[in-house]
């Protein structure tokens, strides 16, 4: 098939059996690739009720038809599993350089099945595919292992690796790649750890078939030209995602002290230009990227280096923990990356713990003698280490905010800022109803990237609860994740305002199949409904209550900043859900109707 590596690689970790099968053309037609393949194989192959950390769960790693080709940002691959953190669908998009190697090895998807008896790593060099003993790497940190493997195999080999946190079963452990890119959310690393897979090493040299080489070159160059000529290119290259830190602070969206406010009095020293001046030493991009958002930093005070921090980490490990020194935030980032835990969930669960401590719901007896307070970098570093090792109080926090708050009780659930068990990423949503709805209905839990709608709130009125906002969120949810399906980065469209119609001729030239954005958005809606059905199938009683936001946003207005005194009432929260469900063709409990499933072409798959 043009645009595809051509095969699905199936690796049974228990038996050691490795087999290939052709990428199914019908699945490519209906789900295209990347995130679409992940959702399809997850629903079809992981049996109902599978323990996320047991042998029945699978890790599905997929590229898309644009991956690894000369398209701006075509360095994305999707990682999908049943999440140990949420019990539902987990999908995380990994940048860097792995996806190009996967395609060039003739593969579209790797499916990891069952559990290995001993630590292993998967080695792929074109058709040489082996499970190898990972005893020498087990227990070691991510940067150390990646460096050792690069030295052993060569710079051209791309490596994804888990850290000790994943081996120890921290429920929000990530997969690290390229010394700073992650499949970060939902515990993908945790599942690899349970399967005893320490790393995947990838190298490929095969050509990727393209339907119309001349058309592909022309369409690809048109996309690169648009990026190069974009007015926003220079500031984006200089600051990456940190360009929004000052804006979030200004409009009350910067998470501050466990989302108790949206503006931070110490925010100015976290802003992008300050970070650039104080710690950034170079820019770092993914495969085929003309506008690298990655910033590589040197923290002189610690004499350490890290890729980052990007905005989400600045929000969650910075302002949300009351930290105002960018070196402290970058060091916390480095610790999380090296030990192998998601910075967003880590920031969320630590900020929750600090607030509980301040409110007297936790005491020194609970925290191994630590006095928890906002703005204390040393306590933050200690807690990150304890979480990764699941040591003492860190073991309690390693299960994530939802479980920890349920275990603690005493009303601490009110301060748990999560949806469906996933800690909310770095946008405070006290007064931004589109963004609130985006978090409530996101298909992996409270994550921002499916529908970053907060700008729309400011354009049409942040407190308004109107159908246009619901339409916008749904459009985003159907459209934006399609970049994760195609295997390219969305940030060229998002941040440089590249005309999205430029992608269609490229996709057609590569695959030989003409698709408009209208066609692609239908695929996006199909995947959205399929992942919703996965949540429903895997969680008894799943319904409207699962879509409610953190209580803070409808009951606990900030006392400072531009959003002081503002919340979204629970009546408006429910009104948003009513409109959303109706527009999606779902019942009042948020269940897709039979008619909707038929329209989406899913009736047979979900039956």
């Amino acid at each position, binding site marked *: 098939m043009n645009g595809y590596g051509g095969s699905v690689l199936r690796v049974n970790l228990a038996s050691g059996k490795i087999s290939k099968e052709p990428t199914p053309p019908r699945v490519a037609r209906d789900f295209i690739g990347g995130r679409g393949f992940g959702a399809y194989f997850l629903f079809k192959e992981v049996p109902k009720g599978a323990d996320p950390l047991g042998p029945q769960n699978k890790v599905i790693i997929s590229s898309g038809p644009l991956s690894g080709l000369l398209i701006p940002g075509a360095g994305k691959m999707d990682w999908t599993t049943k999440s140990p953190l949420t019990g539902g669908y987990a999908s995380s998009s990994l940048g860097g350089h792995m996806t190009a190697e996967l395609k060039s090895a003739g593969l579209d998807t790797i499916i990891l099945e069952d559990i290995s008896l001993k630590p292993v790593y998967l080695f792929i060099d074109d058709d040489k595919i082996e499970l190898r003993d990972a005893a020498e790497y087990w227990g070691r940190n991510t940067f150390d292992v990646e460096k050792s493997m690069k030295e052993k195999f060569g710079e051209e080999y791309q490596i994804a690796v888990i850290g000790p946190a994943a081996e120890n079963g921290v429920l929000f452990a990530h997969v690290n790649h390229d010394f700073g890119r992650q499949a970060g959310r939902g515990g993908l690393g945790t599942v690899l750890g349970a399967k005893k897979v320490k790393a995947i090493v990838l190298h490929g040299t095969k050509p990727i078939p393209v339907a119309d080489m001349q058309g592909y070159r022309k369409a690809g160059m048109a996309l690169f030209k648009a990026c190069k000529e974009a007015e926003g290119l220079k*500031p984006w290259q200089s600051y990456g995602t940190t*360009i929004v830190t000052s804006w979030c602070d*200004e409009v009350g969206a910067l998470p501050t002290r466990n989302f108790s406010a949206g503006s931070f009095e110490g925010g100015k020293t976290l802003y992008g*230009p300050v970070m650039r001046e104080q710690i950034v030493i170079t820019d770092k991009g993914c495969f085929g990227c003309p506008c690298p958002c990655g910033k590589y930093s040197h923290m002189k005070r610690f004499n350490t280096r890290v890729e980052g921090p*990007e905005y989400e980490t600045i929000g969650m490990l910075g302002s949300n923990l009351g930290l105002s020194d960018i070196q402290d935030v970058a060091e916390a980032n480095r610790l999380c990356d090296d030990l192998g835990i998601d910075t967003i969930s880590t920031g969320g669960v630590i900020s929750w713990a600090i607030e509980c401590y301040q409110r007297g719901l936790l005491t020194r007896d609970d925290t191994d003698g630590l006095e928890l307070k906002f703005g204390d970098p040393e306590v933050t570093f200690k807690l990150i280490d304890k979480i990764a090792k699941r040591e003492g109080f860190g073991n309690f926090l390693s299960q994530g905010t939802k479980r920890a708050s349920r275990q603690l009780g005493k009303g601490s659930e009110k301060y748990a800022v999560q949806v469906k068990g996933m800690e909310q990423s770095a946008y405070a949503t006290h007064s931004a109803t589109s963004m609130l709805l985006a978090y409530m209905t996101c298909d992996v839990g409270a994550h921002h*990237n499916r529908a*970053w709608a907060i700008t729309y709130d400011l354009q049409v009125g942040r407190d308004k609860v109107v159908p246009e906002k619901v339409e916008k969120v749904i459009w985003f949810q159907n459209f934006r994740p399609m970049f994760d399906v195609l295997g390219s980065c969305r940030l060229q469209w*998002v941040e440089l*305002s590249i005309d999205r119609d430029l992608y269609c001729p490229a996709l057609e030239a590569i695959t030989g199949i003409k698709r408009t954005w209208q066609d692609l958005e239908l695929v996006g809606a199909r995947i959205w409904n399929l992942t919703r059905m996965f949540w429903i199938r895997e969680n008894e009683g799943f319904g409207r209550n699962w879509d409610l936001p953190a209580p803070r946003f409808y009951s606990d207005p900030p006392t400072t900043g531009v959003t002081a005194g503002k919340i979204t009432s629970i009546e408006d929260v429910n009104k948003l859900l009513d409109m959303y469900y109706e527009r999606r063709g779902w019942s009042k409990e948020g269940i897709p109707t039979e008619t909707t499933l038929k329209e989406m072409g899913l009736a047979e798959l979900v039956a």
Partner: protein
Amino acid sequence: MSMTAILRPIGMLKKYIEDKEEIEVQSGITVLDALISKKIPPELVAGVIVNGNYKYKDYLIQDQDIVQVIAVIGGG
């Protein structure tokens, strides 16, 4: 003689100046005041670049400055 500078909105902010590439603004006022005077919503401006350097909305515009204002577009 009045002192002026150039304001260049980037992206969707252009629509607030009738899709022009740039407009003149008075110097001696802040970027925030310049935005308000031209009816460009300040909350939709993510970044301010003056003569190639990043500034904030409280920057006092100097004569002959070139002030680029970047829209918050689609987010991370």
